[in-house]
């Protein structure tokens, strides 16, 4: 096989090299165009809304006849929107911290626990359920169950739903870091007389730390932006940032909404970017 190729390339020589060089250039061009187009596709809409949020009028006309930050001031002094923002922030912190704690326990179970393999796999599958089933089914299921057990609608069902929603992300993020820690180190620590808590604090925790912080940040971003679960579970007594935005989107596109969108995107983007710098996404 190798011999044939050798003879072939000798025979065709320069033209063949030229042809293959041209093919590689075309290929490179194709890939570069796809990548640039994808980047534009993902971010151009956001840039457009950012531009339109500077509109002096409540309904931007393209091109804008001036630029002002008045809609940002309006958003941040809108009592309903700020209340939604604060509620989303509080739910996000609770869901992120609790979710990361439970995610750590789940990750430890999947990666390290001295339990039968099927049991660890079971924990992994149960935790992963919300990744693969339609969110609307999860939301309806939790909504109906909350009604049946007398929890009704409101803050607690929303927090529970968000906690469940962020759990698989936290679990698998922490598990992939957990798996890189050498299990023999913890065994040695224990042989030297350290108890479980000391071993965890001095050996495992320092190595897991970046993944835990990243998990809190990612989970916060997920919960902060989650719409559908909240829509099903919130009832009429509470509002969150995504519910507020959705309500306004349904009414119509305005400069107010554009400014609110930019604020929300910048905030979530910053949180996620810090998380990604601590724990790269793969």
């Amino acid at each position: 096989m190798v011999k044939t190729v050798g003879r072939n390339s000798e025979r065709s020589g320069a033209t063949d090299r030229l042809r293959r060089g041209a093919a590689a250039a075309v290929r490179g061009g194709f890939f570069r165009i796809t990548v640039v187009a994808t980047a534009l596709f993902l971010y151009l809409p956001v840039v457009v809304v950012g531009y339109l949020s500077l509109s002096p009028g409540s309904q931007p006309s393209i091109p804008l006849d001036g630029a002002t930050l008045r809609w940002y001031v309006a958003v941040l002094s809108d009592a309903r929107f700020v209340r939604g923002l604060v509620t989303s922030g509080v739910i996000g912190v609770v869901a992120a911290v609790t979710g990361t704690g439970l995610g750590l326990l789940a990750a430890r179970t999947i990666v390290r626990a001295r339990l039968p393999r099927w049991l660890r796999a079971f924990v992994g599958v149960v935790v992963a359920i919300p990744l693969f089933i339609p969110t609307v089914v999860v939301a309806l299921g939790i909504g109906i169950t909350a009604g049946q057990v007398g929890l009704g609608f409101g803050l607690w069902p929303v927090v529970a739903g968000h906690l469940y929603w962020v759990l698989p992300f936290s679990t698998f993020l922490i598990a992939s870091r957990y798996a890189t820690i050498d299990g023999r180190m913890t065994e040695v620590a224990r042989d030297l007389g350290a108890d479980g808590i000391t071993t965890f604090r001095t050996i495992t925790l320092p190595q897991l730390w970046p993944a835990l912080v990243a998990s809190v940040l990612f989970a916060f971003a997920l919960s902060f932006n989650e719409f559908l679960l909240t829509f099903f579970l919130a009832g009429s007594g509470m509002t969150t940032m995504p519910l507020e935005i959705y309500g306004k989107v349904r009414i119509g596109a305005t400069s107010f909404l554009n400014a609110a969108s930019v604020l929300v995107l910048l905030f979530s983007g910053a949180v996620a970017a810090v998380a990604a710098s601590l724990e790269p996404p793969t």
Partner: protein
Amino acid sequence: MRGSTDRLPWPIPNGPDQRRTLVDVVLAALPTALAVALGVVPLLSLVVESVSPPVTLSNYAALSESVYLTVLVRSLGIGVVITGACLAIAYPVTYWLAHACPPRYRLPVLVSFTLPLWLNYVVLNYTWVWILATDGIVNTVLTAGGVVDRPLDLLRTASGAGIGPIELPGPSLGLGFVHIYLPYVLLTMYVSMERLDYRQVEAARDLGAGSLRVFVDIVVPETYAGAIAGTLIVYARIAGAFATPQILASPSEQMIAQIITTQFYDVLDYPFAAALSVVFLLVVVVGFGIGALSTDVRAELKRW
């Protein structure tokens, strides 16, 4: 992924060993209890709710009305089209990223391509309103440039086209969907693409294979696990999406989650909403069953 404590090179005394197993069970119980209480129990109560009051199949009988079937088939079809579109974009992009991108740009590009995962999808969908509306960016540019006389109907317009039972989504619905689900597929595909040994591609090219041949015979078989993982993660969310069709679909493109939500929110017919959900879930799960059985895919999902 496997814990290296599975087989230790030295024996462990029996007493403390049992106590540690007990600790493991207790620590495992907390997250498992939450996942069962909020995942398994609600699914069971959906099934129970769907056959109430007392015990009846009338909610399922009502499902056979053609309007619901049409919406169900449309939702599943749109899921197929959008998942396919995401994969078609993700293949060249992640291939470039894993094998042609200069290493120092690799991580920043990957992070920026996956950042929309953590952004608000209601907001991301909303941004397309300003791109595609009659007074939006695209139409302003096209009319000012004299390409069209009057603005095109791009926002909330059905495509009217389809392949067999599969309807193609209208422009705004399609773009909005790809915008929010592409990052998931990019992430799972990248994980697989990174592990594709580039020397295989070079060897195939040296042996005279063209780009199509390299793609079909090397890239696809080496990375299909990532493609399936991405499909598993986005398909059900697309077929079961609520906010995106509410914001970007034409009234004739109603999807299953919108009907479920209406039954839950406005009609307050919980049993019927539950029956719709159960049928939808069953269809999706049966479709997934095949993929999830493969050990390759399971390994891939664990990595993710």
